[in-house]
């Protein structure tokens, strides 16, 4: 089969130059992290199936809102009481197959949804200020710290917001919202890159 990875285009390819031009490392920078693998996972927590799934992920499933577990290879983000998104730098097809096998005959779901969202990285000392212009979640460090991830809105559209470092955030909008989210961020960053 032809190597499809040479044909694919990420949802923000057309804005890569504009995002690079608007990025100033001492204030705030914006870039796309394209083609990360994502697997939608549903399983009843605290069941043998959930334990087998955790073995595949190499870490226990997050148990509450905002929690993430695992590492960059297989990171689980809490989406609901029985729902998670696993973000992987590896092959999502392989991961989906492994999770599906772990579920076995028990109720649950493991589905490759890699094309559903893209990942936008916003980093720098003013990243939080930029987000606070359009995100209703309290991002102050007393309530939001690296390793936290929540489903919320940015500029009124749904996104997953994931803080990956002291000054670094990842936003996961649906692919169809990615252009709007990136352009909104470019506008919100203007006061810090003029």
């Amino acid at each position, binding site marked *: 089969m032809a190597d499809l990875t040479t044909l694919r285009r990420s949802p923000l390819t057309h804005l890569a130059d504009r995002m690079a031009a608007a990025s100033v490392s001492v204030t705030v920078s914006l870039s796309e992290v394209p083609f990360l693998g994502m697997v939608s996972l549903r399983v009843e927590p605290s069941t043998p199936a959930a334990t087998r799934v955790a073995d595949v992920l190499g870490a226990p499933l997050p148990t*509450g*809102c*905002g929690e993430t577990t695992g590492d960059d290879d297989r990171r689980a983000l809490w*989406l*609901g*009481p029985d*729902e998670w998104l696993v973000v992987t730098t590896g092959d999502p097809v392989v991961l989906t197959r492994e999770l599906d096998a772990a579920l076995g005959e028990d109720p649950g779901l493991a589905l490759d949804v890699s094309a559903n969202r893209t990942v936008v990285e916003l980093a720098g000392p003013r990243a939080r200020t930029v987000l606070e212009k359009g995100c*209703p*979640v309290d991002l102050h460090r007393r309530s939001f710290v690296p390793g936290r991830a*929540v*489903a*919320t*809105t940015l500029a*009124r559209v*749904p996104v997953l917001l994931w803080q990956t470092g002291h000054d670094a955030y990842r936003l996961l909008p649906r692919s169809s919202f990615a252009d709007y989210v990136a352009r909104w961020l470019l506008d919100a960053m203007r006061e810090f890159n003029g």
Partner: protein
Amino acid sequence: MLLLTCPWCGPRDETEYHYGGQAHVPYPEDPAALSDEEWAQYLFYRDNPEGPYAERWSHSLGCRRWFNVVRDTATYEVLAVYTGASPDSQVPGTPTPGHPGGPR
């Protein structure tokens, strides 16, 4: 703007939620036995109190789960948040019905 406490996610802005109307409207035991008027009553007729009102909310842009809220329709005060059949199963940290600040 209402600040509603999702039982799973904590306090979030009203804009993250979807309103689901009156809570605890039971599905008819035997729908086929209902007259057209009774069916219309079930489908379309809801209470419209001035004061405490139990209603359904969905955290549609968050965890996507449904839950119940007792809200004062006159003051917009949220009196209880709960997931079960009654406010007995309410979320910790929200006001207790029957106590000061709770439904009359």
